[in-house]
């Protein structure tokens, strides 16, 4: 018996030893970086800047090309900081951070991207990224938007129509898009070609109860499922069965909307309206009859970075009204008091049906959609 206990103890030492050691290391790092429980109630930004100037270059992984200009603006105010940024698709950032982490590297300084469900699933269990909310921001925004990581902004995807042909969306109920008049007259980008379509339809499935209610309101009878699990999936299946055009990119969706005549619908991200303002495309977002699916971007600090103070300055800058102006408008800031940039004047309150993605179940929902999409098509 004693022998077994010894063996178990030795095993436990090898299995849990590293974990204990890890959390001890992590705690020490948090303490040194004044993060987590060690974040002071009032942050002394002069001291943070002072320390940041001694730090090695901060490595930023971001899924946005605007990061470079935003960083440059910060450096004008805070000369002496060293920041290097990379713009990569979110999926690649996650793959990269996971592989780096598992190989024992602690390179990442700031992670700035969407796909919160993958971050929950792959980054948080590793403690590869650490939550950080500048105190002054924390006081102004809902606590829910700071857990488990700080949300930087909300992005919306919704249904668009050509406003040169119609004053308002040429449908009263989203289910109308699955009917004969809209055969071959609905466009989306491929579910396998970028995050927009999978994210939007994941939101639709997560709000299946709502979809069921809308179905009954439109057809006047309970929904009948054909090999699908819920009303959301049934909606996707029926769109595909109704010869929905699946294009390769969201740019083509915008183009198709612009060229359309008669009743026509396209799903794309709200920020595409930037090009409408530029005069390149012609369409408007339906705020009344269709749901808008809202997802979000997290911003967090890479655990064990040697440049935590530079990271804090960057996070504070990017989440401020001024420093984040590249995104406010096309996306919605967490602090709703921020001014939005033209041509974007809508806030999320202006939409009738705002469906917020639930990151905890999104992965499973999306996996099923990706599996069944080719079959339903």
């Amino acid at each position: 018996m004693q022998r077994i206990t010894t063996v178990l103890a030795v095993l436990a030492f090898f299995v849990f030893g590293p974990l204990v050691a890890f959390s001890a290391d992590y705690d020490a790092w948090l303490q040194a970086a004044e993060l987590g429980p060690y974040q002071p109630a009032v942050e002394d930004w002069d001291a943070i800047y002072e320390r940041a100037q001694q730090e090695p270059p901060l490595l930023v992984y971001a899924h946005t090309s605007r990061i470079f200009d935003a960083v440059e603006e910060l450096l004008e105010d805070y000369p002496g900081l060293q920041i290097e940024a990379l713009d990569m698709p979110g999926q690649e950032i996650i793959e990269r951070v996971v592989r780096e982490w598992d190989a024992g590297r602690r390179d990442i300084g700031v992670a700035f991207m969407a796909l919160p469900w993958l971050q929950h699933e792959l980054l948080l269990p590793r403690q590869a990224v650490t939550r950080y909310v500048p105190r002054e921001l924390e006081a102004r925004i809902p606590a829910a938007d700071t857990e488990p990581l700080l949300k930087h902004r909300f992005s919306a995807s919704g249904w668009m129509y050509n406003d040169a042909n119609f004053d308002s969306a040429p449908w009263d109920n989203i289910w109308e898009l699955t009917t004969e008049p809209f055969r071959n007259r609905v466009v989306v980008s491929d579910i396998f070609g970028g995050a927009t379509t999978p994210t939007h339809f994941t939101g639709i499935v997560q709000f299946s109860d709502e979809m069921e209610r809308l179905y009954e309101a439109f057809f006047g009878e309970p929904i009948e499922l054909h090999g699908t699990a819920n009303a959301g999936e049934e909606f996707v299946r029926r769109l595909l069965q109704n010869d929905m055009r699946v294009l390769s990119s969201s740019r083509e969706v915008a183009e198709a909307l612009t060229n359309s005549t008669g009743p026509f619908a396209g799903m794309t991200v709200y920020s595409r309206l930037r090009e409408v303002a530029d005069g390149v495309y012609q369409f408007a977002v339906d705020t009344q009859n269709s749901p808008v699916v809202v997802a979000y971007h997290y911003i967090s600090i890479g655990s064990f970075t040697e440049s935590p103070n530079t990271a804090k300055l960057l996070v504070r800058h990017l989440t401020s009204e001024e420093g984040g102006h590249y995104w406010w408008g096309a996306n919605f800031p967490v602090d709703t008091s921020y001014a939005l940039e033209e041509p974007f004047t809508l806030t999320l309150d202006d939409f009738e049906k705002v469906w917020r993605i639930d990151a905890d179940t999104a992965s499973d929902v999306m996996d099923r959609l990706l599996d069944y999409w080719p079959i339903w098509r």
Partner: protein
Amino acid sequence: MKSLTTPGPGTLWLRRRVNSLKLLWHLPHRIMAWAFILVFAYLIVVPVIEIVIGSFQVRERDVRRIGAAIGEWTVFYWERAFASPFSQSIFYEPLRNTVVVASGYTLLSMALGVALAWLLVKTDIPFKKLISTAIIVPFILPSWSLALAWIAVFRNDQIGVGAPGFIQGVFGYAPPDWMTYGPIPIIFVLAINYAAFTYLITAASLTTVDAALEEAAELKGATGFMRFRLITLPLILPAIGSAFILTLAAGLSTFGVPAFLGSPVNYQTLSTSLYAAAGAGRFGDAYVYIIVLIVISLVAIYANARLLGSRRQFTTMTGKGAVRKIAPLGRWRWPITAVVLTLLFLGAVVPIVMLVWQSLQLRLGDYSLSNLTLAYWIGQRGDFSGILVEPRILSAAWNSIRLSVSVGILTAFVGVLVGYAITKGRGSRLARVLEQVSFLPYLIPGIAFGAIYLSMWAQPRGILPALYGTFALLVLAAFVNRLPFATRTGIAAMMQVGPALEEAAQLKGAGVVRRMRSILFPLVKGGLLAGFILSFVSTIKDLSLVVLLITPRTVVLPVITMGFAELGYRQLADAISVLIIVIVLGGTFLAQWLTKTDPLTGFGDR
């Protein structure tokens, strides 16, 4: 009692070993083959093993989907592909489509490539310089730009983006859907895209065909076509075989063209399924596709080797001086020229003009003159500076040049050496293994290769330092990934070099290095250059391989293009594509000028 002068069995054994070692030194291809196999085993086989094992292990993302712990053994991914309710749509249908498309574009592009090579090397077709340059342009262009150009010409107002294309706009005739999307356009566009492979490799080998052989046939009364079929074709068959493998595999693993031209009509191929899986982080599924693609290609390589191995090896470089003879095209000269120029105009000029024009449009899609601007080149538009005044883009351009030139040179030389080891040992198992191993990286999609290299090199391995984050790792990964281009061209070139020259040098006491430097490399300059160009071009365009390995200091152009395209700043993305084309053309000319070699003539200064 043993005589003192007679060596004992032990001594004899030793002497034999010493002798065979001496012999090995004089026949270095075996040492080289072993050395390459060892190095490649590490650089290539390790990733392949990870892929094979990975396809049988539960991945972190699929823990809930499969209901088992990470790393546990599973046949989930294989079952999903081969025997699940999803198999038809995610595997068998793409497989069928892949076979159709691959047969189509391989045949078409090889016919195009051989015809063009023959016309340029063996006939008096005019504008040779122009044509030989224009042929590689479709290969340089980003493949999506060819696909988009096709759509712009053939679309009708009922499908896709719903706008009439060029044909409908001008002639009022709406082309049927199958001309816009699906297998036919995919086959055509891929064929145009990859005709450069066959052209480059075949042209290099055609130049070395001694006209004396053809003249002999002519004296015997053979007609033009008979001479081609009986003399020229068999001589260039090894080159065609290499081109076949390269073209087939290039199309098997390409993503852009089938995605743009297939996805709107739900026409999936294994490569679109593979990228869809990898793009969604489903590496378990992706690994299964990779293995299937590897198996398909190995079968093709095997068939190819059987076909060529069973034939006699034709030596065309005998060192005795070959005569090139130009056949007059006669009354067909101008009609054929017109066809070739039209093809090249559509495949090379139109897409480039579209790219340049779009990069000059203030508002995309507005083709009026008042809409022209240089803002995306040297000005400022929205939040972004023009590409020629943005330091970040200029430094990326420099990185792209550094990377693709180093990779091009490295692969070209190693390719010839591998080609030497393989052709000298042709028929031996060693040579076959080396040939197949050096081909594997071609079939591993860049993103998976990059991911595996990230894990492999994140930490020091044995005596090897951690390369992660260094420029050297980019070079290494791209080198290994492009190796197949160079080994194929190396094999094609080496198969024509007769042993006599080298043997003569050997008799005169020339060592291996001397023989390589003074005889082999000069003889295969054309092949070297073809290998350089192929890997140089494909490296500078590549995105998926490097995206996981770059650092802020080693960012390359395609990474930036992607960011702009995603934002909808197509003009900036197009301007960068034009910049890449300029760099590639510049690099190609420079390489030709420096080596005084033209892939067309193979031996410019002889």
